[in-house]
Each structure stands twice: as C-alpha cells, then as structure tokens.
C-alpha cells in the first residue's frame, strides 16, 4: 500500500509490499509503475520499500534538492528512519545511479547491492556516448532502444486521467533536473566505485540500447565483488520486460551471497 513519510523535510510517497528481508527499490527515470507485475513478484520474497523519487508522482521536490547526491543522502536517511538491517539495495536505470551513490557513502544497513541497467558513470571519451541521449530522439526511437519488444513499452497517454498525466509530467521534469547536465552521469562516480564493499549483482537487459552490456562490464570492472548476468529478451527495463526471470536471478543471488 502507498503511504507518505517525511524525510529531511521532504514529503515522500512510497509503496510497501510483502514481508521478510527488507529490500529498498529505487525506480527508473520513467517512474515506479507499481501496478505492473514486478512488484508483486518481488513482494513474494521480500518486504519491498519503494519510494517515488522527489518530483515523481506525488513526492515533493523542494527547490534546494538538485542533485543525485541529495537523493543518495535522502535514501540513506530513509534507510535509517525505517531501521533497515541486512537489507537489499536494488536500483534500476536512474535508480541504479542513486543506489551506487548511496553504496559509495555508507553500506551499513545493506547486505547486498543489485543494479539493473544503471545510469551514472562515464566510461568513454569526450565524443563517445555511453548513455543514449533519450531527450534528443523521438518517442518511437526511444521505445526501440529501451525495449526488446517496443510494443511492451507503449502507453496510451491520451486515455490516462489528468492526475496521472500530471505525475508523468512532473517525473519528466524531475528526471531532467537531476540528469540533464552532465547527461545522466556523475563524472566522479566511477572513481569511487571501489568503495562499494557489498556483494553486487549487475543485471542487464541483453537488448538494452540506452546503456549497453559493454557499459555494464565497465561497472563490473570497478566494483570489487561484482558479478554480471545478462537477461535475454529484455531491454533497458528487465524488471518490467522479464519480471519472472529478473526476480528469479535476484533471489538466487541473494540466497547464495
């Protein structure tokens, strides 16, 4: 069920489902989409805590909150507020970037880290794009890059109620605030990934055209205890596109580490 809490003066809306070990899920730039299958599948195994990031859906976005650093501290505060112990930290896409920024700072409340197709680091040269410019291509081209089966990503916006459309518009604006420049990465993050002292699983959609599996290998090379698994028939959002495979792999990793 959805609830609202106040962390560091920021009113956050969050979903909580299931019981068992706590799992903090940080959502992609596209939003949480709690109505999709992935969340209930995860909730069969874990107590899933999934905030809407500040600026997405009904979570507040104060003017001062400007960077992914701020989000990392906000969610470390959330983990303390919820008294999480031995928790799993899971971030997808933009949420993976936030999770990595948390994990280089403080991992006391977490036992494992799972990053699904994360944004956030710079690998290539000045004129190489590690991360597709999602804001410079048509919605159709974006769907082709982000999904193995673009039809699965289609949403008929014209049929949604105004409140939901407003949530989408807010989320798009917030995603730009945090990720516009430098584009969807922190130039320094890669140099601190060695600080991550958790067993780490990188899950990657095989057909991800936003950040490729090669980019995933660069993440793997920087994190000491990282393994990488590639999910077939999935693009940038494997938890949406192949939720069963995604959750199975995550559960196996959690149980064996």
């Amino acid at each position, binding site marked *: 069920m959805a609830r609202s809490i106040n962390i560091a003066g920021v009113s956050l809306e969050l979903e909580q489902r299931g019981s068992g070990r706590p799992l903090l899920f940080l959502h992609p730039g596209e939003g949480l989409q709690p109505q999709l299958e992935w969340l209930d599948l995860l909730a069969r195994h874990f107590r899933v805590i999934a905030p809407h990031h500040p600026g997405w859906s009904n979570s507040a976005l104060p003017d001062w909150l400007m960077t992914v650093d701020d989000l990392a501290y906000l969610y470390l505060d959330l983990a303390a507020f919820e008294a999480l112990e031995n928790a799993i930290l899971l971030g997808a896409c933009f949420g993976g970037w936030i999770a990595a920024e948390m994990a280089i700072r403080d991992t006391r409340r977490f036992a494992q880290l799972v990053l699904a197709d994360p944004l956030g680091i710079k690998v290539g040269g000045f004129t190489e794009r590690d991360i597709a410019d999602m804001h410079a291509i048509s919605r159709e081209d974006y769907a082709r890059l982000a999904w193995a089966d673009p039809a699965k990503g289609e949403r008929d916006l014209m049929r949604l109620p105004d409140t939901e*459309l407003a949530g989408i518009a807010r989320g798009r604006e917030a995603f730009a*605030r945090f990720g516009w420049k430098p584009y969807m990465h922190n130039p320094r993050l890669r140099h601190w990934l060695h600080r991550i002292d958790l067993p780490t699983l990188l899950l990657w959609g095989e057909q991800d055209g936003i950040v490729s599996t090669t980019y995933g290998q660069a993440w793997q090379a920087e994190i000491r205890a990282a393994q990488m698994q590639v999910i077939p028939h999935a693009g940038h959002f494997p938890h949406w596109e192949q939720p069963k495979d995604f959750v199975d792999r995550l559960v196996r990793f959690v149980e064996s580490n």
Partner: protein
Amino acid sequence: MRCWYFSEMAYHPAWEAGLARGTLRVVLPSSNFDPPTAHGLLNRYLDEFALCDEVGLDIMVNEHHSTATCMTVSVPMALAIIARETKRARLLSLGTPIANRPDPVRVAEEMAWLDVLSGGRLEMGLVKGAPYEIQPANSNPATLMRRYWEAHDLILKAMSTHDGPFNWEGEFFHYRSVNIWPKPIQKPAPPVWMTGMSVDTGKLAAERGHVVGTLLSGGTAKPMYDAYRQRARELGWDAGPDRMAFAAVVGVGATREEGLRRADQIADYVRTAPVVAEPFTNPPGYNSIGANVAIMKAGPRAHRIVKDRQGNSIDHRRATVQQFMDTDTVFAGTPDEVFQQIRDFSIRMGGIGHLLFFGQGGHLGHEDATENIKLFGREVAPRLRDLSVEPASAAAE
C-alpha cells in the same frame, strides 16, 4: 506606436534541405551551409538594417542557434555593427536568452557597452528563449525559469550598482566582485523587455513594469496583454500601449498585389520556423505541468496550430498569406491598407505601442526588401507613430 524593423538574417539556401529532413534546427548539419554565400547575405542584411535608420525606423535584432532560419548567433555582436552604422534608430535586443547563458555579468557588461556605444539608444530584451534553444545551449530546462529570474535580477543589479563591487551567492550564479565597467548611459538601466505567449508572462512582466512582446497571433496576444493591464491595475498603475509589443510580418507595395507578394515571401519565415524535430519542441520543464498535461491529451502533432479571427484552426507551416492575415500574423497591402490593418489590430488588442516588423524572410530579394522598408518607413510608420498619443482606454472598444 513605434515601429521596429526586424530580420533574423536567414540562411534560406538551406531551407529545402531542412524541410526535406523535417527540421531546420538543432540537427540539420552545417554541410548545408556555404560560408561564401553567407558572407554576401550577412552583409546584405546589415545594409538593410542600416537603411532603416535613414527612413526613420527603429531596429530589433534577435538570435538563434544551430539553425538555417537565423544566422545571428549573438545579439550584441550584430547590434555593435548596427550601432555604428546608425545615428537615430533605437536598438532593441530581443533578446538575450539569459537562462541559457552561463555568465549574466557578461550579459550586463555587453549591454552596458552597447548603450554607451550607441549613445543611450539600447532597449534590452531579457528572454526565456524558444524550446529548441535548450539543446544547442545544453541548459537545464527543468530549472530554466529559476535561472532566468536569478540572471534577470543580477543583470539589473549589476547595471544599476555604482558604488563598488557587490557579491552574489545565488542558487545558480556565483560572483565575489560584481563591478561592471562601463555602466550604461540610461538610468538605472536601458528599458527592459520580456517575451512570451502566456497569461503568466503578462502578469510577471506587469509586476516589473517591463515591456512585453509576443508574436504572430492576435488570439494568443490579447489574453496576455489583458493580463498585463489587469495586473498593473491591481498594483496601482495603468499600463499604457507603450508596454505592449507585437511582432508581425509586414508587406507593403505600391499595389495591394505587390504588398501581398512581398508578405507572402517574408511569411516563408513563419512557415519554416516551426519545422523542428519533435524531441526539441517541448523539453521537460520548459512548459508548465498544466501545459504538459494539455499537450499529452492533445497528442503529439497538435503544436503550431493557431486560431484565426473566426475561430478556424490554421497550421502555420502551410498557411496562405490570406490565412496569415486572418490570424494577425501578416499585415499586407498598400500603405493605406497596412496602416488601417495595424490600427484596427491595435484597437482590438486594447492598444499596442510597438510593432515589430518582420521585413525579411529569406527569399525576399534585396530590392524588394529595401522597397518594403522604404514604403513602410515613409508611408506607414509616421502615421502609426501618431497613434501612440491615444491612451489605451480610448483605443479599447
């Protein structure tokens, strides 16, 4: 009413390539640009600006980036030349896209320098900029208006502070010693203009007493002017026509046919300007949440449609000159006809004090452009200038 001649200094030889590609902006490669051809065009356009001074017109310059529609990349650079080539014309920068500029103090310096160079003839537009300017500038659209207002306040403070350095530790801009030299001739600063198309812009401009300008559609302009006047009344003052500006294509000829032909050619500017690749038309945060909800509900192809005076939808990319006249985008005909059209328009708007005259749209040749400027400057503008003595209340029906 003051009349300001305006040309984007188009690079029209690349328009066909841009139309074929579906965008004239942002992603049209400069392989479509021939520098020797542009050398001739830029010098010709500057000659046309200089002519305005001889026939008694004021002058406006704007800037765009990465586009075949406009070669002016820097308003101060163009106005520096025009200031030297003119003696009487007031010079309107409309303007500097201050939320896309990393250094507002540099903007204040350049504007002050222009005011000094021109002998106090500068009018200073501080503009938000079009949505497709975000990508070339790579400025963050989600914080655009916060940056705009911080830059606006800093620029005006920098121009009007004369007792030594001040510091600025803002959200977006940081300076330890702001102390600009030269300072402007006009005190406390040259007149400030804003541009927009919304009621909110009208209110915000009224709160500062700035001139507000809009373009191309009377249907959009009227609510903005009304909002300005109402907000001014709420704040205890009456906003006269001198606070309202409107940009339109104007074609004047010895005959009606000649005026319409010239307007039709200039209107190619209006037809090409909206041809922009879809991702750059609405960057996230550029428009309000409410406007974005409306855009999502309307579907992706609804932009660039305006209503004519009968309420019909007109697509600017394909409109005829007559349709443009019905949306108040174009005024055209003989000097008498053009005067009547603009006067009637001003009355319908409740009184406007500035006409920004699009007099060059690419394919209009130099001879036609200069004839258009001369006829407008000598036959139309003097009669419009006398309109400015009418108070807004008398002009409103």
